[in-house]
């Protein structure tokens, strides 16, 4: 039983890392602009398809598709921002509807271009087992877990230490005051979206290299990312990692101790429980009243 639980914790940890990678971009835009980008999963998915195209057409390692994925995801991010910025009234709600529609368009575009077939990398080495004592994983899972940690740290540093990161936080806190301080809110928000696009591109290549992609995947990626973002607490980047790992571990333990049939249910139950006890999420700051 100990070996089973240890493997479960390890698998949950790695899954959590991949969940965090998917959620980071959504959390950034949600945390800084209060926009829930419901097309985020599709941005990740299109990046994954770029990896597929590069491997399938040019026979190159999917990791080398990252620059192409980055360009595509950032372009989509800028287009999404451009459309969202046209909304003049009730931006939080209307952007939700708009990005949901963009998500549907992107899903159907993927379906038309690449058909409904499933795809995954066949490059050698990605699925090779890595054995650490009693713990087993694929080489790609471990690699992308490390990438996820690095990106969380980099994003946290960027938001707290860089000029643009501070500008993003300033615009998020008080748009007019930020403007008076010489910050261009539009440019800052574009930067937020572009950074979200960069994160989505890495997540997409990771998903293609470790799992299976198909056009309908985007919506479920958005759902998972949204749950983790809310669980973490709005605006908390380290919270995304903690929330993602928590969900990953709880799901994996559910499989080992009971049944995989209810692992999604357990993840959702945990989500609701945390929100019941901590309405602002695990690391969310309490909203100022009055």
């Amino acid at each position, binding site marked *: 039983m100990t070996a089973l639980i240890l493997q479960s914790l390890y698998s949950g940890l790695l899954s959590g890392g991949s969940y965090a990678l998917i959620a980071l971009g959504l959390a950034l835009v949600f945390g800084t602009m209060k926009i829930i980008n419901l097309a985020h999963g599709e941005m990740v998915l299109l990046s994954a398809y770029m990896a597929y195209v590069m491997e399938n057409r040019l026979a190159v390692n999917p990791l080398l598709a990252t620059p192409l994925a980055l360009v595509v995801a950032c372009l989509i991010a800028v287009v999404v921002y451009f459309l969202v910025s046209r909304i003049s009234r009730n931006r939080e709600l209307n952007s939700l509807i708009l990005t949901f529609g963009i998500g549907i368009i992107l899903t159907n575009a993927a379906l038309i271009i690449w058909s*409904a077939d*499933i*795809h995954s990398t*066949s490059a050698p080495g990605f699925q090779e087992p890595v054995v650490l004592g009693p713990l*087993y994983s694929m080489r790609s899972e471990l690699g992308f877990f490390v990438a996820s940690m690095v990106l969380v740290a980099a994003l946290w540093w960027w938001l707290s230490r860089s000029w643009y990161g501070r500008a993003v936080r300033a615009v998020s806190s008080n748009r007019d005051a930020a403007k008076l301080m010489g910050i261009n809110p539009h440019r800052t928000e574009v930067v937020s979206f572009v950074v979200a696009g960069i994160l989505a591109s890495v997540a997409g290549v990771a998903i293609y290299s470790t799992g299976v992609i198909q056009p309908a995947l985007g919506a479920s990626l958005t759902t998972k990312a949204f749950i983790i973002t809310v669980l973490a607490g709005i605006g908390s980047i380290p919270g995304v990692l903690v929330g993602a790992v928590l969900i990953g571990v709880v*799901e994996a333990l559910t*499989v080992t101790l009971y*049944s*995989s049939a209810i692992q999604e249910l357990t993840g959702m139950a945990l989500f609701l429980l945390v929100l019941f006890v901590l309405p602002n999420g695990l690391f969310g700051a309490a909203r100022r009243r009055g």
Partner: protein
Amino acid sequence: MKSILRQIVALLLLLAPGLSTADAKEFLLGAELPLTGSLARVGNGTLEGITVGVEIFNRHNPSHKVKLVTIDDESSPAKAVAAVEKLASQGVVAITGGYGSNIIGPASDAANKAGLVYMTSGGVGNELTARGLKHFFRTNGSAGYTKAMAGLFTDMGIKSVSIVYSTKEATTELANDVAKAMRARKAKVAMHPFDPTITDFKPIINKVKLQDRSEAIAMVGYENDYVGILRAAKVLRPATVKAVVGVWSLATPKMAADFPDLMPNVYGTAMLPYPAGFRTAEGKEFADSYKRLYRKEPDYLGQFGYVQAQILCEAIKRADAKGTLAKGGLADEVRRTRLNTLIGQVAFDKNGDNPLFQQRMGQHQNGRIIIVWPKESATGKMNYPAVPW
């Protein structure tokens, strides 16, 4: 003079299609399928076969023209019902298609209420035929798959099996049927249901490895599930496992081509070996038409789609000849079907099921698919014990 001649030729050319089809009676055949959403892959594959079936029928029957009207149910039961109602309002004589027992159930109920024949090959759930609907027919039920899987395990002499199955309706039912069949053969069975959204199967396969210690893994799911399970098994390498067996969508040329590292020695249900060996004239015509239309080799979904369209088109023609088509006689005509098709014998019982349906088991061997069960249909020997890792 030249211009008059030119005008006459132009007029004749304009009228020619009308003249050729003027005598042909046109029948609208509805197709309700998941062309988008989670079941898009299987829905599109089935539609390809249906289209080929209709095209071949029209070619052979110039006096009857069947026109296909397709509506995407978006992999949703509610939209499938709406699609059936819309097709009924458009005047279709029957509906073919459907994928997934949970979608086919309400869709075929709606068709039955509208008095329209509903023909499918995409739902194996027993409850579909247990309803005893007059207008519901399917070419393949769960029993054909259970017999094939359990039969293969019996021939291998398997004493213990871990069944890893998706919690979707049809897969759960099939998994339970296989478990029942294996327990009746005194085999030890461990059940591992999984949520259809999961991607990491290592915790499940680790239970197979450390707790069950089974001789075989039975996978009842879909393509993405198989890839996840096989990858997890390749990482954990459960030492006691001698065979990995799945059902539909697994022993296909596409899986052999897309996942050459995962597929060696894996078993799955397959009507044909690969490269496809169509021996009959009908089979060759189907394969040629399919390749011409879609520029690829036909797969099992295309075969099933073709057969369901073929049965319906033939029945429409017969009912029309008897003058019973407009009086609700199509269901009786479908029930009279006795055909040797690309998927084997087809005849329907009073509930619309095809009790003659019998699946075969194929094994991936060196990029090919070899039929290994039943012995009388085998195109080669099975590699056993043998696993993909």
